[in-house]
């Protein structure tokens, strides 16, 4: 399972790539692999404000609907149209072309509430039993 060291994570299996006061959000390799074939992605539109750890959208696999939570508070600036048209991209490139949204942050300090790669690895290990 791929787990980049330079990203931050949530225990709900989202990843965050921080860049100053903005961030790119996606779901982890573990999440996409657990969900299986992803067939639908529904994210908030650009301009919508989201709140840390509150639901912001859904990802659906063939059989399951999963909530996606905002890792940080802020305003959505871009939604990845490629994954809306080809949701399987989340499976094939979870950390690359399968990113979900870009946002500007309301409070960059909230990053302290996120997990580093080592801490997230423990979450995955616990979930995998």
């Amino acid at each position, binding site marked *: 399972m791929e787990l980049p060291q330079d990203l931050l994570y949530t225990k709900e299996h989202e990843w965050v790539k921080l860049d100053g006061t903005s961030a790119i959000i996606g779901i982890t390799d573990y999440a996409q692999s657990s969900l299986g*074939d992803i*067939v*639908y992605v*529904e994210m908030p539109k650009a301009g919508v404000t989201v709140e840390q750890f509150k639901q912001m959208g*859904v990802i*659906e*696999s*063939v*059989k399951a609907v999963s909530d996606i939570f905002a890792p940080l508070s802020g305003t959505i600036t871009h939604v990845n149209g490629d994954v*809306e048209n080809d949701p399987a991209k989340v499976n094939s490139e979870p950390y690359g072309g399968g990113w979900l949204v870009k946002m500007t942050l309301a409070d960059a300090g909230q990053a302290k509430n996120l997990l580093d790669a080592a801490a997230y690895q423990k979450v995955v290990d616990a979930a995998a039993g």
Partner: protein
Amino acid sequence: MSPFGGFLMPIQYAGILDEHRAVRTAAGMFDLSHMGQFVATGEGVARWLDGLTVNAVETMKPNQARYNIFTNEHGGARDDAIIYRLNGRWLIVVNAANSEKMWRWLISRLPADVTLVDRTADFALIAIQGPRSLELLQPLTDADLSALKYYYATEGTVAGVPAEIARTGYTGEDGFELFIAAGAAQQLWETLTREGARVGLQPAGLGARDVLRLEAGMPLYGHELEEDITPLQAGLDPFVKLDKPGFVGKEALARQRAGGGYDRIVGMTMDGRAPARAGYSVWRGDERVGEIRSGSPAPALGGKNIATALVRADASAPGTVLEVEIRGQRHRASVVSLPFYKRPR
């Protein structure tokens, strides 16, 4: 693995889409050992079962299999099942989730001239489904499978394992179901995996099975059939033999058929990308006219979203345009005739 009917069952192996493709184009292998298997013997079996079900049992020919529905006094479905008339015995295969309920029901109605045995724990069920099933299995068995008609069964050995072999399934494809002793199941599974490589066989889980059956327009108990959904509401009219002598629920079903106007299960296709899921509301204008019972993208239809819904009679005609409410948004959908998918013959 997920707990299901007391068994740990794989929802998926390689992935639902891959497994679906294998079943539609080559062959897939399912472990269905969780399904309830009851064996009935005695002079009175057919008469007894005819009194508990909507479809005809007495008229079944030797080695024939027939889909049937056990009903309650209101005509609702206690369970749907396949009944096999084998040599000197009858096999009743019920849904895993209903196995205990059905066992109690059958035992409570057991006549003196029928013996019923629950063999679920001692038997396994492996299904091979898909257009290349025959090509895979024929070299492994002494039974003449090409002579075995759809919805008939025979006995033989498969890779040396004694089996009841039935040409039945739940995928909309040609295929076979192999009833074998539980102790031989792992060995047979491994042999079939090895031999199956030459036809592209893949193991397939409950997830793929649900998508396959939905595309094929087959009901799943708990969704299209329930204690308070009758076979007529589920659109299973051809299986309801109201000319049969008395059976549980017959009067209620006769009244329902004569009265018409009842809510019924329909197929729907969605215009948009958002899948409809069980429980979502179905609207026509300001009126809530029904509820989604099953929903999934249909790989056989290029990924288009399909669903079944229980809707009011006046919203059930094919071509009717309705809306499905998904997370507060309305999405256009059309009523279509079932099945969504028919295999090329």
